[in-house]
């Protein structure tokens, strides 16, 4: 059974087709990248898959179950997690607490036990904290654990967001521009982290502008332009595809029109 299958997904905003009839599949351990020029509909596609937007047409199937337009918190319990292009960090918490929040599905319990500080509540919280510290070490943030999340550098916040998403041991992880705004060193760190996570069996769906990174780590690339899929395949195939080159560099007619 396919892990994640996107089937004919489409959405319109005010009569304009932002994404139209996009289909692809993601298998466990794969890194599938969605690329395309600015405004091609990549983030919109992500928002539909992760339940932030209600798709106008098509289906999202996760492990055989139709999860189209399902609320993000329900998708989370089914093994889908994501990060955001414009960071969604809990700024009102410490770095450690942010990571612990990723364990919500494992650490939640009866609210009464939490109010009364019962041993069961403490046990859940302790287990989540141990897991969170481990994850912070994995992304190199263990020494920042007690700092306010808002005080971290941009690259660190990106890693923190990934750590938080990993806490739930997702089957599919959607990363929306994880390397955006990061310097070369940070990009490489994130690059390694992604490869590592995929190697552990988690499927990764990636939107990224850093082409070098995409070409290096993707097992499979989906190319969008004007909301439609114009190409799909291994990195080497896609980079030679004339339609892709035209989309990125402009067609000859486009060049004429410009001149």
């Amino acid at each position, binding site marked *: 059974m396919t892990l994640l299958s996107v089937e004919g997904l489409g959405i319109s905003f005010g009569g304009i087709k932002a994404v139209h009839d996009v289909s692809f599949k993601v298998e466990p351990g794969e890194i599938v990248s969605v690329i395309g020029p600015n405004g091609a509909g990549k983030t919109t596609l992500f928002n539909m898959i992760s339940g932030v937007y209600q798709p106008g047409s098509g289906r999202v199937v996760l492990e055989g179950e139709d999860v189209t337009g399902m609320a993000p*918190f329900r998708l989370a319990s089914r093994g889908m997690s994501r990060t955001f292009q414009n960071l*969604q960090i*809990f700024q009102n*918490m410490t770095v450690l607490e942010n990571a612990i929040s990723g364990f919500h599905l494992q650490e939640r319990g009866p609210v009464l036990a939490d*109010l009364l500080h019962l041993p069961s509540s403490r046990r859940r*919280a302790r287990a989540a904290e141990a897991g969170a510290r481990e994850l912070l070490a994995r992304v190199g943030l263990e020494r920042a654990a007690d700092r306010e999340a808002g005080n971290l550098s941009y690259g660190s916040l990106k890693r923190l967001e990934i750590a938080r998403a990993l806490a739930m041991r997702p089957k599919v992880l959607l990363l929306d521009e994880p390397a955006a705004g990061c310097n070369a060193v940070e990009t490489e760190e994130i690059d390694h982290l992604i490869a590592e996570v995929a190697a552990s069996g988690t499927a990764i769906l990636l939107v990224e502008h850093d082409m070098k990174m995409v070409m290096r780590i993707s097992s499979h690339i989906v190319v969008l332009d004007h909301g439609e899929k114009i190409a799909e395949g291994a990195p080497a195939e896609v980079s030679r595809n004339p339609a892709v080159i035209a989309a990125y560099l402009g067609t000859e007619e486009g060049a004429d029109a410009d001149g």
Partner: protein
Amino acid sequence: MPRLSAKSATLLVLAALIAVTPFFFPSGYYYRVGALIFVNGLAVTGIVILTGYAGQISLGHAGFAGIGGYACALAPTHLGLHPSLAVVLGAVISGVLAYLVGRPILRLKGYYLAVATLGFGILVAMVLNNERQLTGGPDGIAVPELGLRGLLKDWGLDLTNGQFWYFFCGIVLLIGAWIALNLYQSPSGRALRALHGSEIAAGTVGIDVARVKLQAFVISAVYASVAGSLVALQNKFITPDVAGFMHSIEMVTMAVLGGAGSVLGAIFGAGILTLLPQVLTVFAEYEQLVLGLVMMLVMIFLREGLLPSVLRKLRGRGE
């Protein structure tokens, strides 16, 4: 030296203040003021959970205080319940009502809760004012004696009425603060603070945002209800003012002034705004003006509230 956790430190400070302050009371009257501060502190601790932790705003929490208060007036005479059980009944009714009001509202994003609770509070006050046969209308209604003071006297602990209510409300406040602080560090509390930080991110880590908001709303309603019950039992009398809009605003202002994110801060805010009218008798006439001014100034100059801002300043200087 082992570092004291923030929770133990808060509870110790609170317990010490409750125990030591009476030595400085110039007259027995101040026990009454102290008890009032503790009751307001209790209600405001509920606001801390709703507003400080979860970031939701209620403008009708006095409605729940009214329910708690009138439960103590009505349940003993009409249902034959002991006043202590009437407190529990009021809390249960408040919790259930909060659930019913909050459930449809908290699915929506935005400030719908503030608007809905505003309506709810006004509704409760209206019912209490107009159902004269049952509630006595605007003139209020008598509330039976709790009876605990007599019991303590039999056991050899003879307190004046003022002393009894001072320490009784103080202990209830300590329990309320303990529960709120437990919640803060717990998985459920973390979920509340997470949705306060980012509802979108809270959803992606699997937090059912509507559900945990509802939890916070119900819990805070129970706090307000118990506070209302204590006011009624202490005064042996209650009027619909306890459910009035101004009382709701007072609660929010106390929390915001002291620091809605901190239990100790919010109780501190309750202390200041309870003391003010006692010290300045003119305050009563200008209460609405002062509350509005306080809210504005705090929002402009001390966004976190008085106590957290001051502590941060002190800590910053220490480093």
